[in-house]
Each structure stands twice: as C-alpha cells, then as structure tokens.
C-alpha cells in the first residue's frame, strides 16, 4: 500500500506572457513531513506554491488534496482546505495593527447582541490571542498588539505572517522564505516552530535559499530547476554540494535514487 500525499501537484504549467514560470511541475507532500523546496532565483518555487495556495491559477495540470482533485481560484479556496501560506511578499496590510493583520479575513466577533446584531469585533479578545501567538513564536518583544505593522522591522513583519499561518493552518503550512529577513535567534524560533508543527503531524513546505537550514530541518528536499522538478533528495542521500549541483544542472539523479516518497527517505536514513 502506498501512502497518499496530503498535497499533490501534477504537471503544472504556468506562463506569464512569454515567460515560463512553471513547465510541467510536480510536487508531493506527505503527512507529517517537512518538504524543502530549493532552486535558483526564478526557478519557479514561488509560482509553484502560489498555485498550491490559490494565489495563482495554473494554465494546466492538476492538484489534489488528500487524493481529491481541487481547483483553487483564490487563496480563500485553499484556506478552506486548511492550507495556510506565508508568501515571500508577506501579504500584510501595513496600516493595520498586528492583531488586525493576524485575524485579517477571519475576524472574531464579540459575544452576544453586540457581535450578532451590531457585528462588533472582539478587539480585546483578538489582541490577547495575538499576544499569545506571538509569545509562542518567541517574539515576546512585541508588546503592543495595536501597533501598526508598518512600524515594525522587516523581521517582525515576517514573524507576524508566520504567526498567522501557524495559527490557522490545519492541514498544510507553506512558508516561502520565512527566515529571509530574520535574525539568527528569530530564524531558530521559526525552525523550531516548523519542527513543532511536524511533530503535531502538520506537514510543512519550506522554501529557502539557506542550505544549512534546509539540511537541518527537511525530511525531503525538492529541487526546482527551470520551472520543473529536477530531483527529490534527502539530507542523508546527498550533500549540500550535490544539491547545488542539481540546482545548476551539473548533476542528474536517476529516478531510482530519488526520494520520491517518505518510504525512500526512511530507507536512505538507514
């Protein structure tokens, strides 16, 4: 019996005018794993995960959530399947405060008539939850949840986006370079959080250019090259140098030597 992927893409094609973003790209994410996606700039990593999160609509190809064929028209559709994404561009509303950003599109209303009839938001409740969430991520330095996001540093903004995904993702978490603007301590917090999510059984897709990070946290590594998947390897089967060689096309990996499913990854580890 083969394990069924939580999230799967088959032959995705996405073009932007004459630029090819994705050229028949595949991806499988299995339960409880951290799948790293690496590749050169412009290899199509962001485009791939944007299709999986509903932010872009692929020209052709198929996507499956737990075996069910899905077609996402907007990010809301992917969210409905429990897929949460931190985009490379962060997607925060700068003028709104931290709590409003965390709950954007999922606001919590007050109890009773105020909430039901007058649709009043539970500002205090959302701020308390936001505070808890930020503390959980180790971003305790942010005290005032009513502070506008534009007054935060790049790293703090990134933390807000990550906290939002972590808070609401129920099936899959996708992180597009979540540590790019973070300091060492904050990066480690995010990595720890990724491990925590995996331990809870929540699979994670992590896009990163930071090889040591990728090799320390990933179960499998999807190497993207020129809009499609060049290979899937594991930290045990290949070295960082191998991974870079695959990215640049200097190294080709035979299908049989790839870690196309977690079973192979486990075999590699033995």
């Amino acid at each position, binding site marked *: 019996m083969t394990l069924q992927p939580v999230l799967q893409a088959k032959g995705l094609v996405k073009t932007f005018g004459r630029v090819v973003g994705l050229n028949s790209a595949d991806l499988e994410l299995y339960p409880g794993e951290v799948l790293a996606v690496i590749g050169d700039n412009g290899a199509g990593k962001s485009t791939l995960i944007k299709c999986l999160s509903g*932010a872009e609509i692929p020209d052709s190809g198929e996507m499956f959530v737990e075996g069910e064929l899905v077609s996402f028209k*907007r*990010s*809301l559709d992917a*969210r409905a399947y429990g897929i949460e*994404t931190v*985009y490379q*561009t*962060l*997607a*925060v*509303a*700068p*003028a*709104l405060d931290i709590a*409003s*950003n965390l709950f*954007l*599109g*999922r*606001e919590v*209303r007050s109890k009773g008539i105020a909430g039901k009839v*007058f*649709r*009043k*938001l539970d*500002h205090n409740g959302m701020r308390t939850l936001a505070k808890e969430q930020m503390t959980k991520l180790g971003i305790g330095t942010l005290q005032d949840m009513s502070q*506008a996001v*534009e*007054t*935060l*540093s790049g790293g*703090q903004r990134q933390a807000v986006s990550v906290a939002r995904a972590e808070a609401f993702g129920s099936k899959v978490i996708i992180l597009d370079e979540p540590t790019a603007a973070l300091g060492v301590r904050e990066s480690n917090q995010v990595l720890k959080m990724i491990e925590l999510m995996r331990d809870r059984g929540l699979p994670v897709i992590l896009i990163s250019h930071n090889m040591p990070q990728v090799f320390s946290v990933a179960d499998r590594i999807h190497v993207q090259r020129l809009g499609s998947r060049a290979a899937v390897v594991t930290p045990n089967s290949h070295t960082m140098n191998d991974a870079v060689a695959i990215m640049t096309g200097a190294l080709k990996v035979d299908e049989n030597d790839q870690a196309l499913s977690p079973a192979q990854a486990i075999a590699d580890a033995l």
Partner: protein
Amino acid sequence: MTTPTATTDAEALIESLDRKSALHKFHHVLHKYPWISPGLVLLVAIIIFGLLNERFWAISNLSLITQQVSIVATLAIAQTLVILTAGIDLSVGAIAVFASMVMAKTAAEQGVPGPIALLLGLMVGTAAGALNGFLITRLRLPPFIVTLGTLSIFTAITLIYATGKTINGKYLPDFMLILGTKIQIGSFKITYGVVVMLLLYAIFAYVLRNTAWGKHVYAVGDDPAAASLAGIQVNRVLFSVYLVGGLVLAIAGWIAIGRVGAASPSIIPDANLESITAVVIGGTSLFGGRGTMIGTLIGAILVGVVSNGLVLAGLDQAYKVLAIGILVIVAVALDQWIRKVRA
C-alpha cells in the same frame, strides 16, 4: 581647554536627541490619530474668527454653520469610504442630485406618498453607486475615469428627467421637506438634516472601527494584492463601498431638499470638490488605507468655518478659496510626512 567644549557638545547632542524624540513622539501620535491636526486647526480657526468678529461666536451663527455644512459633510462620508480604498468619486454630487430629483418629481408630479418617494430616491442612489462599483470592479477601469464619466451621465440624465426645472417646495409633501425642520437644543438651533448627518457619521465611524467590513475597507485600500492574498475578496469589498456610498449620497440628496426647501438639478454645484476637500483636510490619505470619519467631519466643519468666518471678517469670497487651497496643500503635505514611517 577642551573639556568645556566637550561638555557643551555632549549637551547639544543630548538636546538635539531630545528634540528629535519629541518630534518622533509627535509623529507617532499623528500617525495613530491623523485627525488631530485638522482638529487643532479647527480650534485655532474658531478662536481667531471669533476674535476678528464677535458675531462669529454667536450661537445662531454656529448653528448656521452646522446647517450649511450638512450636505457636503454627508457627501464626504461616501467620499471617505471611496478614498479609503485608494479611489476617488467625482460623481458624488451628481448622484445626490439625481436621487433628490427622483424623490421630488415622483412626489410632486406622480403623487407618490413621501416615504415611497424617498425609498425610490434611495434605490436610485444605491443603483447609481452600484453602477460605479460595477464598472470599477468588473471592467477594471480606474475610479477617476469611471466617475468622471458617470458624473456627466448622471448629470445629463437628471437634466433630461427633470427637464431642467426646479421643483418648488410648495408642491412637495411635508415628509420630503422634513429634514429642513429646525429643532431647538438650548439656544442652539439645528435641523433634522444635521441630526441625520451626525447619525450617519456615528454609524460609519462605528462600522469602520468595529466591524470586519471596516477592517477590509482599510486593508483593500492599503495594499489590494496583500489583502487578496490574506483571503479578502477585494472586488466584493470595493463594490460594496460604492453601493453603500450611493445610498449615503441619496440621503444627502434628501437633506439637500430640506435645506433648500426645493429640489433643483443645480442644487450643489461645487459638491464634488468640496467633499474631496473635506476628506483630505480631515487627514484621510489619498493613497488609501488610512483615515477616519471623525477626521472628515472635522474637515467639513473646518471648510464651513473658514467660509463663514472670512465672510464675517469682511473679506472677499476669493480669500475663502485661497484659504481652502492652502489648507488642502498643507493637509496633503502633512499626510506625506505622516506616512513616512520606518521602524
């Protein structure tokens, strides 16, 4: 001796840092409450005009100002919603007049009962707003162009429909004119129109602050791409803003009938620019995403105060135009400064 110089240098440095942090604090406060600056200007204006001419402070004069601003202030509510989404609505006056003519004409000429005529007018205003929203979200045309077009279209339709004629108040049912009725609060005399205007401000201030829709309006104006990635249906929010705006504009039309005591196709000629002026002076950013209803109300009253005060000070109409021009430019410059934030 070098020591004294060193100390003075250090003192100068500390002093400059202090001054910097004071400016920083001021910046921070304005960033959080952008209506404070127009509020201060309003206060200063009221004091100065009172000193120039005692009659300015007379209760009767202050009552008059609130009545004078009631129409433009109501239009400015719709304008604020639109500008918060980084749009602009050049058709606010045209929609209000269109709706008011529908109310007046159906009541006066078709003999439709007042409340039904009002309802018809409200529906027409809402539909006109919805048309703007449709063109902006479905055809993806810029709000400036769409509303420039519908400004002409609605104005023309109104003129054709009303055959260019004013409908005198004596042909209108009382209900149609009710917002012009004065009520006495102490020695302050305001109209029901002013009450309705203030009520609308209270409602929309609440909605913007305390509902999810309000948050979404800000988010869409702030960064539509980010809002959409965050799961907000940007087009739906935009459309709803123009639709709700249309309803508010129709109410402004009703207020206008009461204030003038008649319905005329040329009732509020400078309404578009005045509504934008009120919004901008009130601290709402033309780039969208920041601003408040209270700011716009202050902006609208400030425009009324300046017009009234300069007239009482015996100055020519031209000075009013000059003063408002300066206020607008100062407000926009201030907004640019306020929006400059870096952590």
